[in-house]
């Protein structure tokens, strides 16, 4: 072979550099056409179904989907089976994805739309002691429910955060003979249905104290929270590289010192995240509270004084009352609850990300 690759190349980087291009990406106009087509199909779908009994969101969705399918099959009729299958798969997967997301979007929208009307400046200091669920929405409030939730969550956190972290430390640092058992049991506990946890606390604490109480509610929540906190703590501690511990030992520190002064600070944010995730898990739990702390109408500050309101049981009670205003109150309560859950969620995310940035 005498052919030889040409000697060439701009060895001089300062010679004119052409503009970067993406010849594989669809042209702008193509994307606009696609968007326009989807809009047209949407309108067409609504128009076609207006006279049929399918004239509602699900009917539109089905009509839209059929139109898209027909379009795709028509467009690819000239291409090979490979192209056609690819295109159809794309439509199917997109449809599934969209349908999967619709309920949650609907929930967020509904909670917002149905719930905001009940919010007024005095909402969080009001309670239901003098107001009936049927009164106008600018009377009463859910402050007692929020306080109740806070109290019970605090009780649960006070118990489970230390216990959960200790479990995590045991499983990663100490690794004694009970490791297998502890891990097995924590995992099993994660499977306890919330209502069973509530039932258990009912038959022990509520029966022996002979009254429902916030303490019982808090304990029931603790049962549900412990596995989450423990598991997250263990995962977070496992992420600490062994080199760090080796460094601690090499410097002469004993195990407890290493654990407390080297390992724990590294994962402090992670442990807080574990706590927050645990709280997020239980703050919306209804079933266990229906069996332990029930609901009440006024502000209660004493966790062992008797029944205690909480956001979930408040919402539940309002909803079951059944009138227009009471259901509206239920939605407002849901708005508050969902906001709390979302706030916790984003907080945990933010903490988790900052930890990863180290």
């Amino acid at each position: 072979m005498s052919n030889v690759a040409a000697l060439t190349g701009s060895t001089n980087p300062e010679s004119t550099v052409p503009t970067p291009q993406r010849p594989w990406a669809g042209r702008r106009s193509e994307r606009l056409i696609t968007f326009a087509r989807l809009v047209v199909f949407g309108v067409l779908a609504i128009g076609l179904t207006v006279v049929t009994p399918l004239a509602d969101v699900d009917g539109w969705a089905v009509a839209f989907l059929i139109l898209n399918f027909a379009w795709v099959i028509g467009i690819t009729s000239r291409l090979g089976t490979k192209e056609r299958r690819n295109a159809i798969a794309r439509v199917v997967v997109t449809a599934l994805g969209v349908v999967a997301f619709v309920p949650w979007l609907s929930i967020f929208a509904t909670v917002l739309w149905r719930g905001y009307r009940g919010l007024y400046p005095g909402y969080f200091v009001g309670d239901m002691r003098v107001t009936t669920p049927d009164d106008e929405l600018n009377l009463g409030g859910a402050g007692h429910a929020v306080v109740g939730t806070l109290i019970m969550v605090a009780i649960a956190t006070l118990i489970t955060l230390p216990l959960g972290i200790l479990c995590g430390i045991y499983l990663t640092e100490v690794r004694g003979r009970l490791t297998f058992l502890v891990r097995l049991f924590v995992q099993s506990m994660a499977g306890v249905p919330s209502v069973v946890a509530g039932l258990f606390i009912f038959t022990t604490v509520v029966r022996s104290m002979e009254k429902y109480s916030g303490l019982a509610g808090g304990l029931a929540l603790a049962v549900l929270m412990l596995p989450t906190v423990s598991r997250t703590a263990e995962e977070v501690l496992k992420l600490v590289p062994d080199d760090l511990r080796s460094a601690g030992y090499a410097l002469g520190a004993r195990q407890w010192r290493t654990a407390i002064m080297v390992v724990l600070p590294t994962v402090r944010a992670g442990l807080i995240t574990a706590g927050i995730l645990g709280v997020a898990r239980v703050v919306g739990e209804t079933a266990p509270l229906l069996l332990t702390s029930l609901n009440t109408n006024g502000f209660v500050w004493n966790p062992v004084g008797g029944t205690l309101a909480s956001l979930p049981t408040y919402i539940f009670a309002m909803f079951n009352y059944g009138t227009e205003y009471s259901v509206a109150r239920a939605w407002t309560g849901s708005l508050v609850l969902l906001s709390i859950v979302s706030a916790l969620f984003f907080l945990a995310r933010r903490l988790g990300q900052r930890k990863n940035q180290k």
Partner: protein
Amino acid sequence: MTTVETPTPRKMTVIYSRADKVFRGIVTAGALTSLVALGIIAGFLILRSSGTFREFGFNFLTGTEWFSAGEDPLGGATAAADEANDGSIFSIGPMIVGSVVVASIALLFAVPLSIGGALYIEFFAPRFIYRPLVILLDLAAAIPSLIFGLWGVEIFTSFGVRWATFLNDRLGFIPIFSVEFENFGRSPFVAGCVLAALVVPITTSVAREVYSRTPRDLIDTCYALGGTKLGAIRSVVLPYGKSGVFAGIMLGLGRALGETVAIYLMLNLVFKYSFNILDSTGGNVASMIALKFGEASDKEISALMASGLVLFVITLIVNTIASSIIQRTTPRA
């Protein structure tokens, strides 16, 4: 030939300092407490429910009656003595079947939706939506089930009723779609749909996570061989993610079986074996417990504990299957 004697290995032991001993002691105590707590729960459940099992035996699981002759001790009235034959009968057969029916309907919808949703997010979504979708997905998994119940009753029921009507009209000749009375709004079908919406975030999250861990070079190889995106998904992504996705589905199943409030709000609990998913019968064990506990007599409490135990065991099995699969397939740090 000289033989070299291998020395016998020395036994290496660790002697902990006093401070370390204290530390280890505290930590172990903490772990033990959790162990003991769960042990107490399990033990208590078993203990308190043993009476029911002794009295009714296997019929507890298969019978169809729930009748309590006693009175609520917490309400002040004297409890009926735990007589052996006060006429109470407790059995949860239809509730177990109801749990399975409603959970199955939920999974029937949830499985394709979550696999499709996960594939969409990972492989088909435009890049700029990817992160918001993942965040929305994780947030959706945190929505309390009570809110799902509210949404189900207020918003979804009209849609569900329409679909049920359609099914009943067109396919009513098939036994499971036939009804005695038309009250579709309180049917396992509609409840199952809402339960599906509840389960989908969990299963989709897991599936998406699994699919995102598919080794990039396997996918690249598919393309390098002249394959298309669909081909890569079918040949590599789906087989690779099979066990992980299955574990996620198990997790979703566990959730569906144990769901209390959403079912409570959407179904009338009826103690009748029924596979007619459009009929307004059904229920599940969890919501039954929530419903019945309020005025329960002592004997009834024991029966409720037994129900709780049954529910616990079922969800435990399902969750253990899921966890063991996840542990086997997740790489260690």
